[in-house]
């Protein structure tokens, strides 16, 4: 490991510069993953394609023909990457946003409940952490339950929450957002408790010498200290609340949202549709987390805490 870092600057290979950073290796790994994807797509789709040939009684099919056919099936076991990309292109750019077949429409629905749940969860988490940091009883009684609340597989009861709330008349965005809230409040609570406790004793003592009240100490010392922790846990919370929103959409009878697309795809064997919804969800998660990362950078820079 140390050898590599020593040798790379001296090398005259033009690729060495590229490969010693992270960009080069990441590109290589992504390409390898794509290659594996294509190969396994061919391998997994071949039996079905051979069956087709047999029924059409075509015996002498060249290998190149077989490969192109396996990569262009209607309902492949594993769709090739380009099929998924084409499907995404078709359902995002070439469809109207208001159309029920538009992936943008479904993504928007998932996004809205994710964001609502995330906001609620972050608020709840911050409030809980403030209570826990300032009250000994809350710390002792609530904190263990906050932790054990996550061992309850809430995702498992997500369908029930939705169905039950629907029966009472609460439907639409809120039930899904509640599941996202439940999933996203935990990382924020734990992170913020840690963050609000991170000022050193010496700093707290300084606030005492200023005769600062607890509220002043909170706004002027504890909260600024907790901001980096807040952003880190918000990233985790955002990813968790997207998962919550997607699972929350499963039982709504496959109406709308990325989760509904997944479920509909699995009912009708539309693998390309499943994969496109999956990639879209991945893209959504990545961009949301990146967005928080950008916000983090800006905020920390303005607060003079940028590393």
């Amino acid at each position: 490991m140390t050898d590599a870092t020593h040798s790379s600057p001296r090398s005259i290979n033009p690729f060495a510069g590229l490969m010693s950073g992270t960009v080069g290796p990441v590109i290589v790994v992504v390409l390898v993953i794509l290659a594996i994807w294509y190969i396994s797509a061919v391998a997994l789709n071949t039996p079905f394609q051979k069956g087709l040939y047999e029924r059409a009684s075509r015996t002498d099919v060249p290998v190149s023909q077989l490969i192109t056919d396996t990569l262009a099936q209607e309902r492949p076991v594993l769709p090739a990457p380009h099929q998924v990309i084409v499907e995404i292109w078709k359902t995002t750019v070439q469809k109207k946003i208001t159309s029920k077949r538009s992936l943008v429409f479904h993504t928007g629905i998932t996004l809205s409940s994710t964001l609502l749940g995330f906001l609620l969860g972050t608020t709840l988490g911050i409030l809980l952490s403030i209570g826990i940091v300032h009250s000994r009883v809350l710390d002792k009684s609530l904190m263990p339950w906050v932790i054990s609340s996550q061992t309850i597989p809430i995702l498992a009861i997500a369908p029930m929450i939705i169905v039950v709330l629907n029966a009472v008349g609460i439907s639409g965005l809120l039930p899904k957002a509640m599941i996202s809230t439940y999933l996203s409040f935990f990382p924020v609570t734990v992170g913020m408790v840690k963050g609000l406790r991170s000022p050193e004793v010496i700093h707290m003592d300084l606030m005492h010498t200023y005769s600062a009240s607890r509220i002043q100490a909170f706004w002027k010392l504890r909260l600024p200290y907790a901001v980096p922790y807040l952003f880190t846990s918000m990233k985790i919370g955002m990813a968790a609340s997207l998962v919550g929103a997607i699972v929350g959409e499963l039982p709504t009878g496959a109406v709308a949202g990325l989760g509904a697309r997944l479920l509909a795809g699995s009912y009708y064997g539309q693998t390309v549709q499943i994969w496109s919804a999956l990639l879209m969800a991945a893209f959504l998660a990545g961009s949301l987390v990146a967005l928080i990362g950008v916000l983090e950078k800006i905020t920390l820079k303005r607060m003079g805490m940028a590393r």
Partner: protein
Amino acid sequence: MTTVAASKRGFDIPALLAWFIVAMVMVGLFMPIFSPDIGVMDVPRLSICLVILAIAGVRYELGFMRNWIGDLILGLVTAIAAWLLISTVSDHAGEAALGFWALMAATWAASWLFVERLAIWKSSSPLAARLINLAIPTLFGFTLLVLWQLIVVGAGVPKVLLPAPSEIWIRLTTSVPILWADFQQTFLKAVLAGYFIGCGSAFVVAILVDRVPFLRRGLLPIGNLVSALPIIGVAPIMVMWFGFDWPSKAAVVIIMTFFPMLVNTVSGLAASDAMQRDLMRTYASSYWQTLFKLRLPMAMPFIFNALKINSTLALIGAIVAEFFGTPIVGMGFRISTEVGRLNVDMVWAEIAVAALAGSLFYGVVAMLERAVTFWHPSMRT
């Protein structure tokens, strides 16, 4: 610091709570307890409850017996009051009126006061301190259960919406064979198999990745990205590939547990500092000796962190994967079908089993961690 802050705050919560108890008791005395105009004096058990709560509140307010005996009596009074309330409300389901809610609030405040007093107990022995630290969250949980029971029965919440804990308990005890079969299918087969294969393979890959710096630089950013993705979405694909039985669920669990384990193990293997590695080199130790004697032990806190995260992820993955297709047994299957039949108490029983299994799983991993990383600063208490 805490004492200064407490005195500066100007009000103390215990006194406020005691006043609240007295006020609520007064409300309970003069307002109807159950809806068709039943006063507290018509229900002897509730009058007892009211009297003991009033005595407890006034006693604290007057500063009488503010020591551990008084606190224990307060706890006893709270428990009796809660039991009296629960046993009375079952005869008047759905008829609770203002007075009843006031008594419930008084009981709740009494239990809070008890916990508040418990939290400032000074204990001499570490064992007693640990017991108190265990008792406080347990009491909190019990309080929540009692409140749940009282509110659901008292307000007559429809069973479809939220069953009372007692109903869930009855369902849990009467349908043990079904729950056990589901538990076997989901937990013992899918979760455990997936968890061990996923974590094990990620561990091996992590050591491989650590040996090849190129892979580390290329795989780690992708691993970090993937851990933020909603991996649970692969569940329908896995069900399509591996069929309805447990292997497809185990596959989902493998994928879900793989990346957290990979990322954590790799960063754990980098946790030893250059000084320690140099020391190993002066001992002329080989790569494997350094790995086993220095770097793996140093990585253990990280690895156990991943194992703990994965213990809850695995259960979630297996249950959600069952929503996409399953044989007629399994926790996820039971939850989705019983929701359809509006047998909500069965669903809650299943959730209780899942929560218990998840907590135990987590607890076992945490105990293993305690045994393996006893040297770590966070374990020295």
